[in-house]
């Protein structure tokens, strides 16, 4: 018998009941809640007169609709009445059911996928869900984590379980280390460029290899965050010393004797050497360069030294049409150099890249430089109140402001533009978020996904540049 994959182990340890029809009841250890996908779930509970199964498994925080500017008038000060009602509804629901919530003015508030790990609410070996597709982020901890819809949010609240079918196993291995200036964001974009946005559909993906184990926890979170952009509901990385060091001492992490016991249990959270995967994808770390998306899907990506594709060279009719459509929407011409794309705005933030390390990387690039005069706006939005405080303690906020970037309050912000931060029609944005779909960052807005360092370099230059030139100091 062959060994087990990490996913097999996580599945087996959470199996409550295998049903004859192939479906299974899987136990959920942690549910994170935010204001957009939970109101209808709480309503459903009330309608059916059901109570949450386990209050202490849930943690909530508002993130999508919160303003990132002045918050001195609290929730009542949210200008958009519809957003305000949604944030208030989360507060009321959490109060009514006794669920712990970091409310908008709490210093721990932030994007759920930043807050969960930061608080130790996400632990190795857990099953983690949230009504948000980027829940895959938490797989960085050797956890089984995926996004669910609102009906399932209600299902988990009411039963602490989900009805699931086991997915297939995929291994994505990055052999060897990546070069300087190449980050987790570039690795995951390169992976999506290779396998496509549906490449991981139906799979639980494990990321492994030197290029992955070299990454910090922040980097692993960036990587797993975008597993969903490769079509995989869940992405994960095996537990190692980096994981343990990150978790230790966090608010909701076990302490003392329990900690020792937990660490011992977590040592098994990796795929066995003889585990069988249904699919294996390999990349060479050394081949990965800083990435930039040019189109309207994350798979429409190339290296910063590349060019916008020419549909005339595409033989597949469906792909050709997709490229043509994307080029019209993005206002780009075939064969133009990526570095010739001029930018209107820059956004550094989102659950993909708003952690302290991301902000440090961006600050390092802009330090002592000035944002290009042609830029309308460059925003830095920390992922949580604690990230913000840490950055301010390190003086990063001053570096940003001196360089001409805006320093904001934590939230999703321009990642999906549900609050007041958005792109205008036709504007190009270098964004550290995860989706470049049409209209994602504002009606008619044009998003280019990049790493924080690449976004920072683009802010200085006013167009894309290879950040590696910046880091070596020979940029103009």
């Amino acid at each position, binding site marked *: 018998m062959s060994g087990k994959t990490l996913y097999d182990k996580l599945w087996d340890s959470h199996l409550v009941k295998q049903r004859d*029809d192939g479906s299974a009841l899987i136990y959920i250890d942690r549910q994170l809640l935010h204001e*957009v*996908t939970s109101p209808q779930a709480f309503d459903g509970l009330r309608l059916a007169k059901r109570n949450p199964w386990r209050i202490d498994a849930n943690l909530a925080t508002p993130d999508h609709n919160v303003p990132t500017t002045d918050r001195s008038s609290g929730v009542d000060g949210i200008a958009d009445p*519809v*957003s305000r009602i949604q944030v208030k509804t989360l507060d009321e629901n959490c109060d009514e059911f006794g669920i*712990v919530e970091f409310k908008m003015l709490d210093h721990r508030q932030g994007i759920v996928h930043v807050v969960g790990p930061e608080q130790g609410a996400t632990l190795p070996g857990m099953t983690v869900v949230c009504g948000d597709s980027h829940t895959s982020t938490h797989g960085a901890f050797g956890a089984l984590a995926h996004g669910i819809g*609102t009906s399932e949010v209600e299902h988990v609240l009411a039963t*602490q379980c989900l009805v699931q079918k086991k997915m297939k196993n995929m291994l994505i291995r990055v052999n060897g280390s990546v070069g300087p200036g190449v980050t987790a964001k570039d690795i995951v974009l390169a992976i999506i460029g290779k396998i496509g946005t*549906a490449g991981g559909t139906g799979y639980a993906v494990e990321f492994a290899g030197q290029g992955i184990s070299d990454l910090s926890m922040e980097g692993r979170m960036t990587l797993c965050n975008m597993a969903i952009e490769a079509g995989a509901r869940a992405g994960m990385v095996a537990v190692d010393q980096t994981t343990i060091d990150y978790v230790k001492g966090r608010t909701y992490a076990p302490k003392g004797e329990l900690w020792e016991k937990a660490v011992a249990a977590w040592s098994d959270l990796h795929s066995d050497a003889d585990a069988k995967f249904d699919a294996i994808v390999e990349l060479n770390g050394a081949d990965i360069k800083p990435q930039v998306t040019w189109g309207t899907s994350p798979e429409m990506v190339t290296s910063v030294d590349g060019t916008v594709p020419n549909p005339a060279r595409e033989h597949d009719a469906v792909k050709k049409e997709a490229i043509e459509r994307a080029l019209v929407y993005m206002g780009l011409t075939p064969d133009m150099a990526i570095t010739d794309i001029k930018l209107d705005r820059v956004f550094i933030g989102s659950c993909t890249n708003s952690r302290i390390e991301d902000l440090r990387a961006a600050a390092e690039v802009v330090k002592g430089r000035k944002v290009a005069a042609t830029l309308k706006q460059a925003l830095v939005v920390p992922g949580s109140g604690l990230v913000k405080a840490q950055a301010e303690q390190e003086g990063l906020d001053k570096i940003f402001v001196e360089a001409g970037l805006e320093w904001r309050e934590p939230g999703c912000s321009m990642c999906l533009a549900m609050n007041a931060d958005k792109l205008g029609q036709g504007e190009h944005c270098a964004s550290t978020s995860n989706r470049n779909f*049409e209209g994602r960052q504002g009606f008619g807005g044009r998003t280019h996904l990049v790493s924080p360092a690449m976004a920072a370099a683009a802010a200085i230059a006013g167009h894309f540049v290879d950040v590696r030139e910046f880091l070596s100091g020979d940029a103009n």
Partner: protein
Amino acid sequence: MKAFTTLKGIVAPMDRANVDTDMIIPKQFLKSIKRTGFGKNLFDELRYLDEGQPDQDCANRPLNENFVLNQSRYQGSNILLARQNFGCGSSREHAPWALDDYGFRCVIAPSYADIFFNNCFKNGILPVILSESDVDLLFKETFATEGYQLEVRLAEQKVVTPDGKEFGFEVDAFRKHCLLNGLDDIGLTLEDADAIKAYEVSRRQEAPWLFDAIQAS
């Protein structure tokens, strides 16, 4: 949940791959705390020429006449024919809510994004998977014949064309059972409450740190 047994109706062709959930229902409409009323904003950015706002009366908005749902021949359609990777992107259940509210009870496509696919079943919508070539053929027939209708029979797992061609499809047994009978998943899971409790007791022994975790401080 509404039961789904047999559905016969007009087919609307959505001829583009990778239709994402932002396209199905743009984010400004996710601010609603209700489950209904999303139909008028289904495919909002494709359907109208201006930028839609929540709670807006859509009757006077400028329509994109070229968009398929605005063409008279597809009015009253309840089956959406689509291309590969339909519903990719976010987990928002507002996407199936919008499809349902508009009147679509069935989508036919060669493949779907996982979360969207799952969300459909929770809302009484049947996402049928047919091969690329079968879907191609259905697109051709839909374009060729005004008022083209299909019949979708869940019990027999078949899609039937007007001239009697039949296409079989696979569907998970549990999901089929729930759809056919309009069953509430939560009620079904709670029938296993004892198994869940037994799991918790043994898991608490093994991994006590997973319990009593999140407490107000």
